[in-house]
């Protein structure tokens, strides 16, 4: 097809590199793009540190009280800034989430990995991952309006906002993380370990429970940690369902304010700017940032180890191995001679039996019952997740489809409940997404190409790679603060479409880099070697042979990232508006977006609820369409490719 393209331009092998200059220019560009991660990191640190500094420069704020105070009354007449109530809120949410999502997630992963037949598995895994594709605002809505009443029925003392409803919903939100990483870890447990156990006469359940789970324990631990990090950093569910009144307690039926909820409150509540109450958001965000950073770092290391293949947690470290060897060699001095004799002297005497035969039949029956029970339980975990998903979708659909009309989708919005329309929000979201695409994709793809194809493994590249990994774990509300500080205020872009999409681009960049890198890695090494072997330069190789084959993967990854961007609420909470009559028609215009509309309407009188549900339906429909596109592109490109 195009194989002859560059050969024609290189007839004489001695020709000076025609593309020398542009090659260098391209590589310089790629290098610069790859450094964007550094600037983003600096922006985050600048925002948080500067804001925190402002916060502590207020007289009434004391570091000791901030860290150990039990009262969080930031806007009171006599303000108190003791973080412990926010910490207790976050702890309750994260802890409760893990108590529910941990067992269910591990159970579901166990079923997928050990019990589900291949076909069922290929069907169920995407279903579980669908849970991850639902925007957090939808979860928050579901928690407040569907789970909430159920909880108040069961526990009449539960308040309207309570920790429990947030925890329940959050559990299903982090479930995909736990399931997919635990499942990977269990799948990575070598087959021969299972066989060893089965060959000893263990039941499948015993093998799963006593061999597979312990062998995968580090991966499972990592999945739990990542789940915790997600729960800690999640904003919309806690803002909508858990509450915005901080109290130092551990009552799950009461309202609480996790850290993210406070930060969000400074965006949506009536907290006066320029006061310690407003600046406190930055200090809280710094704590949040450091906390999630730490957890992600630890989990990241474990996952990295699993991916590299050294899965056994109990495999001794290099040092320990060495120590054992030395111990061995010392021991050997005495045993060497002895060993010879030992092995000759040995007589296997089967008359000494230890295992009683009596009762083994009964024991076996019990073991089988246990096995069946265990397997059913783990299947149940998956069923619970699927039921939750179906119920959520059904509930939103039931409530929302009635309000969907041509006017609702395309009309000019009025203010009365009967005249509501989401046209400006749909357009706002689409513009936001397209602009995010423009800002995030070139830089991200260039970064991926630079790291995967051009850069050598140096300290600097490892440093930036790690930085990008870390960026992926930054809570979205922190990104929101960064957008506010850097784009809205520092760059003076105001609360504009431009500022909003740049903020979302910050959020999406690490995701697109990772998916693009995966797409590049999927291109067989032989392609590069063949091209390089024929004398193509590095960039020519990338441009002519690697990129064309990686683009479908990149498009898929980008669409998935954008579908996440369109559902994000927290990053644009500080930037988006609540009402606009028309679609924005300039990048400097203020804008409304679908998730913000859902958020606003869900806090209005009950008459707005169906409209919020209708908006959720539209949002989900857009997400579903985008995902379907991504899947089609992936499928078609896989069908076409011959490698």
């Amino acid at each position, binding site marked *: 097809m195009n194989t002859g393209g560059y050969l024609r331009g290189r007839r004489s092998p001695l020709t000076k590199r025609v593309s020398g200059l542009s090659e260098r220019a391209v590589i310089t560009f790629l290098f610069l793009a790859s450094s964007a991660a550094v600037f983003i990191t600096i922006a985050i640190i600048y925002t948080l540190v500067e804001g925190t500094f402002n916060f502590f420069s207020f007289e009434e704020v004391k570091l000791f009280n901030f860290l150990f105070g039990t009262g969080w009354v930031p806007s009171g007449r006599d303000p108190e800034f003791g973080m412990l109530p926010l910490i207790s809120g976050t702890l309750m949410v994260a802890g409760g989430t893990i108590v529910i999502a941990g067992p269910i997630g591990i159970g579901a992963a166990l079923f997928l990995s050990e019990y589900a037949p291949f076909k069922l598995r290929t069907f169920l895994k995407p279903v579980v991952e669908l849970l991850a594709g639902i925007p957090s605002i939808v979860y928050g809505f579901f928690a407040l309006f569907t789970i909430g009443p159920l909880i108040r029925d069961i526990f009449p003392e539960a308040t309207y906002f309570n920790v429990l409803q947030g925890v329940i919903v959050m559990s299903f939100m982090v479930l995909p993380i736990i399931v997919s990483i635990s499942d990977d870890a269990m799948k990575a447990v070598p087959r021969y370990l299972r066989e060893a156990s089965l060959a000893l006469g263990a039941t499948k359940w015993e093998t799963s429970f006593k061999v597979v789970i312990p062998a995968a324990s580090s991966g499972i631990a990592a999945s739990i940690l990542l789940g915790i990090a997600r729960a800690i950093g999640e904003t919309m569910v806690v803002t909508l369902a858990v509450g915005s009144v901080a109290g130092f307690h551990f009552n799950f039926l009461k309202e609480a304010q996790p850290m993210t909820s406070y930060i969000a409150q400074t965006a949506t509540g009536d907290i006066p700017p320029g006061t310690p109450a407003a600046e406190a958001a930055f200090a809280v965000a710094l704590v949040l940032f450091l906390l999630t950073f730490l957890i992600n770092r630890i989990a990241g290391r474990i996952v990295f180890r699993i991916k590299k293949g050294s899965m056994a947690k109990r495999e001794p470290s290099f040092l320990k191995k060495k120590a054992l060897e030395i111990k061995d060699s010392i021991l050997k001095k005495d045993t060497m001679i002895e060993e010879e004799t030992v092995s000759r002297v040995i007589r296997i005497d089967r008359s000494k039996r230890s295992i009683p035969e009596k009762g083994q039949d009964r024991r076996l029956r019990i073991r089988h019952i246990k096995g069946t029970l265990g397997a059913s339980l783990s299947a149940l975990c998956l069923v619970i997740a699927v039921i939750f998903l179906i119920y959520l979708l059904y509930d939103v659909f039931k409530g929302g489809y009635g309000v969907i009309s041509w006017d609702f989708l395309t009309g000019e919005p009025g203010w009365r409940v009967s005249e509501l329309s989401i046209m400006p929000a749909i357009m706002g979201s689409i513009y936001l997404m397209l602009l995010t695409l423009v800002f995030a*994709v070139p830089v991200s793809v260039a970064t991926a190409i630079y790291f995967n194809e051009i850069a050598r493994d140096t300290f600097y590249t490892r440093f930036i790679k790690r930085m990008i990994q870390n960026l992926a774990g930054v809570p979205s509300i922190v990104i929101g603060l960064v957008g506010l500080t850097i784009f809205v205020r520092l760059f003076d872009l105001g609360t504009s479409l431009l500022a909003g999409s740049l903020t979302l681009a910050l959020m999406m960049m690490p995701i697109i880099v990772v998916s693009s890198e995966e797409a590049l890695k999927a291109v067989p090494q032989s392609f590069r070697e063949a091209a390089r072997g024929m004398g193509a330069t590095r960039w020519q190789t990338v441009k002519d042979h690697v990129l064309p084959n990686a*683009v479908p993967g990149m498009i898929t990854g980008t669409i998935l990232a954008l579908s996440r961007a369109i559902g994000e609420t927290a990053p644009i909470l500080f930037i988006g508006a609540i009402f606009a009559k028309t679609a924005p028609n300039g*990048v400097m215009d203020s804008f409304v977006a679908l998730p913000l509309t859902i958020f606003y309407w869900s806090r209005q009188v009950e008459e707005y609820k169906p409209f919020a549900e209708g908006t959720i339906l539209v949002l989900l429909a857009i997400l579903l369409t985008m995902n379907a596109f991504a899947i089609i592109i992936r499928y078609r490109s896989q069908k076409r490719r011959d490698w």
Partner: protein
Amino acid sequence: MPPVIALKPNRNWLIAGSGVLVIAMVVAAGCIGGDDGDTPKLVQTGSSTVLPLAIAWAAEYDDAEITVSGGGSSHGINALLNKETDLGDASRLMKGSDYEKVGGDTGLVTSDGQATGPAPTGVTPYKWVVAYDVLATIVNKDNDWAEKLNYTQLYKIFTDDDPAKYWDEVPGLGSTAPHEKIEIYAPDEASGTYDYFFEEIIPKWGKDDMHADTRLNSGDGVYHPSADDNVILNAIRDNKYAIGYFGFAYYKDNTDKVQAVKIADEDDNYEEPSLSNVKNYPMARPLYIYTDGIPEEGDARNEYLRYVLGPEGQALVPEVGYVDLDLVDPTLASGQLSKLGA
């Protein structure tokens, strides 16, 4: 098994991918260039009390495209002073401290919330009274002992000054009230409504020698603060012995769920909270829009304010749940309109 030499790059995807990117860029560029300028654009932000009104006006007004957002009165005034918004909504008067935050002289702000000189940012906020807000004290539908309350009783229920624990401890209710615990569901401290409510019932509120603090700050756990009116509404609907308060606009949409209490600022001049009774009802306050100076004729803000203060704009006010200016003072609207050159 990948072939060793497989140089058959499929460029279609590359073209498609770049195509999408280019289209996105064109659309984005169109976004920038598409500013046709037919209709002027205004940004309005601030008090969440004013928000529903602002949305209603923005929806009905056709001569400008207005984007509205909330964030609180302080945010509205601050955004105006920082030139981040054209119209700053507030449910309270501008204070010297608002000037202080942008590095201005507190003395330039009168006690009437007007600026006598520009802030360092060059902005001189000008105050427009656009409507009145009525605050409703709310109890459960089944509550038949506290259908009317005076300021003394409210003080006993809502402050930390020897507060009543049970309903029958509230002075004046006596034997008609049950011996049941009072539970308060009401806005939190960040809310302007909270400030306003206590300004009414606590003498010298906000001063160093104020008579009492709020029950929320007493820490006895009776006052359940919430940033969400929905919560307050539902909590009071579900709890026979609960009491709370929020804006009348919110009550108006939920008269079937809770009942509003008649209020007296003296001993027994009980008044019903309603839009028409605003002149007599003690808990009513003005709502403001601040602009940078008095916008001149032809300015989009001038036209907008004329609409807001004019009959069309004011006609919307009661529908949203607030009190239109004429009900309070018939000269208020016309006086302001004349400043706008109408």
